[in-house]
């Protein structure tokens, strides 16, 4: 998953796809600033708004052409909402989304349509994301129909080519989704996403519904397609091992905020945010000998509610390094190392940002450090 040679030039639908020249590899393809999504909570007959679920609460990042940005976090951290915001399946409450320099934050359905060619999505559940009453041919050719694109050599031929690209038998054109296994269905979803030769593919948990051996097939497929077609990916997943394998850069989310954004190696070698560190130490490692050696950080309790997130740093209620300042001041996102941004007052593996502050009472009890056998 490294930089491709020629983004946006390979593939069949080249002539018809794309609305503008693609940015060179490494340049920003998608830029997000202050992106926010609050889902209102209403009460009573008049639907008075009594609160809001702050699913995504002010995040900034950019996605560079040709890279894979991994977004990782626990359930309820807002990662899927973020994916739906940047593909504009949801209307942002605030903030700005730019695709290739164009502001798409509040474009309507019609305004988004030309862009739908460039931005595609792969969904988590290959059972509910394919219409059971349509044949594979109808599913994969739908993008052509909707966009009025006539691929060279006809739609059917193109669909069969796409099926072959994702490793399915092109003769299965007339079959229905129920005739395929989970892994094959996910391949159909991928073929559909690739039909219009997109620039950006947002994949929300693309492999989490699949068995281990099938998961590896799909991960490798995504990898190959990126090399061949010069795709840019945003891959959203909860599995830190998968994210490590597929991503160039990784954003870690907690309660609607990005707490750390870094290059893969930098992040996994020396995580700076205590949450990232705890998250990584919690992943069970398939290595029985190491369970005796490893230091585990066990976070106590559950993620707080995004309806009333904690003040200051949102992680301070579960953080063993929390001090008074964490309770009152939200830490800014700072680049403490080249290519490594973190939002923390007391980062790990980096100089302390707020030295000598009083620790919060009970903060060190918020974690159990263990190295047992």
């Amino acid at each position, binding site marked *: 998953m490294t930089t491709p040679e020629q983004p946006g030039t390979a593939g069949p639908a080249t002539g018809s796809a794309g609305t503008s020249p693609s940015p060179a590899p490494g340049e920003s393809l998608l830029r997000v600033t202050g992106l926010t999504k609050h889902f209102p909570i209403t009460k009573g007959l008049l639907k008075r708004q009594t609160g809001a679920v702050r699913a995504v609460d002010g995040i900034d990042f950019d996605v560079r052409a040709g890279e894979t940005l991994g977004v990782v976090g*626990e*359930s309820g951290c807002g990662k899927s909402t973020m994916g739906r915001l940047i593909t504009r399946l949801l209307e942002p409450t605030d903030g700005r989304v730019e695709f290739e320099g164009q502001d798409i934050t509040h474009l309507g359905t019609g305004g988004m349509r030309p862009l739908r060619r460039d931005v595609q999505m792969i969904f988590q559940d290959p059972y509910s994301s394919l219409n059971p009453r349509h044949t594979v041919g109808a599913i994969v050719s739908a993008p052509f129909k909707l966009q009025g694109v006539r691929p060279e050599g006809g739609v059917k031929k193109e669909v069969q080519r796409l099926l072959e690209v994702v490793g399915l038998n092109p003769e299965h054109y007339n079959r229905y989704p129920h005739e395929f*296994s989970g*892994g*094959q269905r996910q391949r159909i979803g991928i073929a559909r996403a690739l039909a219009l030769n997109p620039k950006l593919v947002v994949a929300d948990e693309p492999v989490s519904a699949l*068995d*281990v*051996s*099938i*998961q*590896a*097939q799909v*991960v*490798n497929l995504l*990898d190959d397609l990126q090399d061949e077609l010069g795709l840019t990916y945003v891959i959203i997943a*909860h*599995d*830190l*091992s*998968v994210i*490590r*394998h*597929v991503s160039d850069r990784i954003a870690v989310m907690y309660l609607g905020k990005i707490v750390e954004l870094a290059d893969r*190696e930098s992040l*996994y070698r020396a995580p700076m945010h205590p949450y990232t560190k*705890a*998250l*990584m*130490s*919690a*992943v*069970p*490692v*398939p*290595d*029985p*000998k*190491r*369970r005796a050696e490893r230091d*585990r950080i*066990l*976070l*106590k*309790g*559950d*993620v707080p509610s995004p309806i009333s997130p904690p003040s200051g740093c949102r992680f301070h209620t579960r953080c063993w390094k929390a001090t008074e300042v964490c309770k009152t001041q939200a830490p800014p996102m700072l680049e403490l190392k080249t290519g490594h941004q973190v939002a923390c007052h007391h980062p790990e593996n980096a100089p302390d940002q707020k030295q000598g502050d009083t620790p919060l009472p009970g903060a060190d009890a918020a974690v159990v450090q*263990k190295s*047992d056998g």
Partner: protein
Amino acid sequence: MTTASVPGDAPGTPTVTTGALGEPVAGGGTAAPPRAFLEVRDLKVHFPTEDGLVKAVDGLSFSLEKGKTLGIVGESGSGKSVTSLGIMGLHRVGQYGRQKTQLSGEIWLEGKELLSAAPDEVRKLRGRQTSMIFQDPLSALHPYFTIGHQIVEAYRIHHNVDKKVARKRAVEMLDRVGIPQPDQRVDSYPHEFSGGMRQRAMIAMALVNNPELLIADEPTTALDVTVQAQILDLIRDLQKEFGSAVIVITHDLGVVAELADDILVMYGGRCVERGSAEKVFYEPQHPYTWGLLGSMPRIDREQTERLIPVKGSPPSLINIPSGCAFNPRCPYADVPKGGITRTERPELREVDGNHFSACHMSPEDRERIWTEEIAPKL
């Protein structure tokens, strides 16, 4: 598992006939007295369907001692959950469906054979001597009753005590599994708990009678990774405390590496490899185990290499390939096997001390492939 008469559908397997609890079973003639705490011998669970006979579990044997943890690993449809339901006696034989579930084999728990025991006898053991944690706590807990009510019920079925005592016991258990303010939360409903707390409540319920055998079927699959770590830790601590035997069923090799002493790898309803965790992880003998290890992205390694997936998809349990079930997907199917044909089924054979594998390849071939081709790429 309500009646013990078993359709003699599988020729050549010892058929279990009804016998008094604890008595050696007549009929098969293979009933040697078991030495282990739990011993499963040649367990078969077949479901007749309109499309054909689904052989969900097809001849599984293993044993487990108290204080030890066995990890059963496999993909969906490999028969892991059906095995656990079989041990718990939760398969409905005949009574409900039009078709009869066919069970055969032997399950010995502390000298008692369960498959041939009367349903009432098994019911007395279930929840007391054997207990189970299910994958999805939201559907395994009753939404209509409070957590406390459900734990109290589980306790009072097996103990003749009044409600007050049972409630005290429920609070004690909730406290033990780490639910904050247990004396108040005991009156909460399942929907008022988070996913992690529900799983804790289920564990409290499963352990309220100090079972000697605990089966955890995908206990952390529905949970976030930080909560998963808490629950795995809890299971390990509780096992140390109570000294029970634990069976962990999972598709996640990370989870078994954390918990299990022994590992059993299942494929197509059969065991393909069994051994200590160290042996299975560091000297795996079966190509399917290699495939699982190669398919897995690793958080603990800098891996820029590609994953090595297993080609194809798992077999249909109606048409399990004759011979080795893994044959159609096996990259080493063409390695010469000294005249053994593809239709011959490989038996589970001992590789070295307490490490078994069901593969036709010679030990030398396997050793060579593992050290030269597989291990360097992992």
